[in-house]
């Protein structure tokens, strides 16, 4: 790479360092506003269906957005991210059923288990390139899935964790109350999104973008690429696990499907659907996929067929996510008007 090209690259990478503080304050305000709106929603629409839908959005949204940290920001196409979703659900469920600790303790312990697991798996996986990375993460996903299926005495095998998860009240929050569960899920979602946005906007986040665009150059200027990739792999796993915890609380159980590869496939598709170039793209994708899933399952038993055709439409027809499409279209229109 010539000197000139290197300079251009540096200019293109516009790190908004001076405004970091104002940006963060703005993010805090947006997050608070979003939380207040979501928390007040039950006062306006009290339908249980809507609240259930938002809780599912919170679970899948955290999972999909954390996947975007890997796919969109770092260029790590993980095809086994769903294993951490399953790990979160099972870890939390087992902790509550077997040990009888309080909810916050179980939550933190689940995150700790995820941290260690992700560290080990990540250390093996992140040195691999593209397609190898995708498939070895997938292989680990299947390993966890088959462990869940065969370790019947602990996990209940293909029946899943049944008998409900005990949810003793803590800090005045009673998660067996549907409204409390809803507000807690919203809080976890908003906090999770806020933290992930901070990661994406931090200097570390820009390092990740650089690794995605040119890993060789990043390592030339002294960045430990392996360590950066491992860090984001573990961080993303923690958020995916949180999504799994919400799911376990919602269905009051955990099932092997939570750790099956289709969860990872759906995560990738959600990212595609929403678009990986914007931070909120995966959230949009989550809402779209859940609506699509609910509609299709109601209309036909051949759910995979319809979903497959929709995926093909986006992958081959549109060639980009919906948010990418909208933003490009908007930019084009603005340019046209400017002239």
């Amino acid at each position, binding site marked *: 790479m010539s000197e000139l090209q290197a300079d251009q690259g540096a200019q293109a990478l516009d790190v908004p360092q001076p405004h970091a503080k104002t940006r963060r304050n703005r993010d805090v305000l947006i997050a608070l506003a979003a939380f207040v709106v979501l928390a007040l929603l039950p006062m306006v629409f009290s339908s249980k269906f809507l609240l259930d839908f938002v809780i599912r959005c919170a679970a899948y949204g955290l999972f999909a957005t954390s996947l975007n940290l890997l796919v969109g920001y770092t260029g790590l196409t993980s095809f086994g991210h769903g294993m951490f979703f399953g790990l979160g659900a099972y870890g939390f469920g087992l902790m509550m059923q077997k040990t009888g600790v309080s909810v916050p303790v179980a939550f933190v312990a689940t995150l700790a288990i995820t941290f260690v697991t992700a560290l080990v798996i990540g250390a093996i996986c992140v040195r691999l390139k593209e397609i*190898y990375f995708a498939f070895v993460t997938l292989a680990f996903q299947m390993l966890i899935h088959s462990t869940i299926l065969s370790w019947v005495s602990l996990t209940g095998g293909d029946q899943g964790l049944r008998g409900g998860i005990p949810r003793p009240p803590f800090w005045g929050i009673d998660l067996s109350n549907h409204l409390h569960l809803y507000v807690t899920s919203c809080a976890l979602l908003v906090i999770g999104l806020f933290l992930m946005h901070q990661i994406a906007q931090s200097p570390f986040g820009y390092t990740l973008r650089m690794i995605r665009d040119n890993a060789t150059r990043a390592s030339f200027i002294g960045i430990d690429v392996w360590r950066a990739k491992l860090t984001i792999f573990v961080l993303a796993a923690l958020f995916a696990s949180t999504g799994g915890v919400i799911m376990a609380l919602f269905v009051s159980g955990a099932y092997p499907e939570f750790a099956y590869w289709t969860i990872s496939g759906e995560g990738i598709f959600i990212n595609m659907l929403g678009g990986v170039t914007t931070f909120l793209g995966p959230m949009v994708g989550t809402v779209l996929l859940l609506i699509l899933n609910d509609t299709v399952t109601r209309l036909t038993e051949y759910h995979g067929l319809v979903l497959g055709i929709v995926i093909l439409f986006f992958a081959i027809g549109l060639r980009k996510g919906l948010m990418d499409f909208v933003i490009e279209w908007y930019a084009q229109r603005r340019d046209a008007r400017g002239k």
Partner: protein
Amino acid sequence: MLPLDLDALTGCLASSACLVTQTTSGFIIGMLLFLVAVGLTLIFGVLKVVNFSHGAFYMFGAYFAMTAYQLTGSFALAMLCGAAGTAILGLVFERGFMSRVYGADVLMQLLVCYAFVLIFDDVVRMIWGPEFKSMGMPAAFQVAPLFIAGGVVPPYYLLLISVALAAAAVLGLGLARTRIGKVIRAAAHNPGMVSALGINTGLIYGGVFALGGMLAGLAGALAAPVRSLTPGMGFSVLIESFIVTVIGGMGSILGALIGALLIGMIRSFGSLGFPLFTEGLMYLFMVIVLVSRPTGLFGKEVA
């Protein structure tokens, strides 16, 4: 959590009868995996895409063979239908869909394949129904099993192993010695130059994909008499054959053969020693290979 049964394993290793039986079953698993994995590795070597829907070709091969066998009663015709049907399917799939995402990133390729895994499974469910099916052993092979050193070996297993070995030999020699084989290898190396020399690379890509699909279909057809058929049966085979290619090295035919036999033996003997952890053993082996040799045992390029 490791349910160990070492007594069973050492007991088997000591008895020649058990050794023969387990080795044969390891060969069966390995040879079927090889046929699927070699197509996967061939497609990756030439087209530089991983056909994530490769398991579906295995599944279609089995269902085609079953239907052809039920209609005609001829085992040879069933094999032919399984292989030819999936070859056509592979050609259509490559020309119609995969060829549109060659330039795109891995994400797009994965998505297109993911879509087809969902679609193919549902198509099979529509045509043949969701329940388990079985083709049944052809009459020609319903004879008394052979006894080799006290171990039981059904004659059909010998046919399966020899067909797979023959396919491996034809493929290896064809790629190394024939003109078409040379063109394919050249296209894997430098497609731009090959097309500049007046060779239709699109045709080669389609042909390689059809060949890979055909091999997977043949594996499915061969497996149909000994395994049960169900929609989604291709996925576990896909994962295993991917492990095989990772162990053997992407793009290497010899690697696929060695990797497939290793996995076959691990599955066969592992089911004795670690009945609940057989799959885990496979993954463990893959991790060991990956950590010590990230390109696989016979891989060349840096991964």
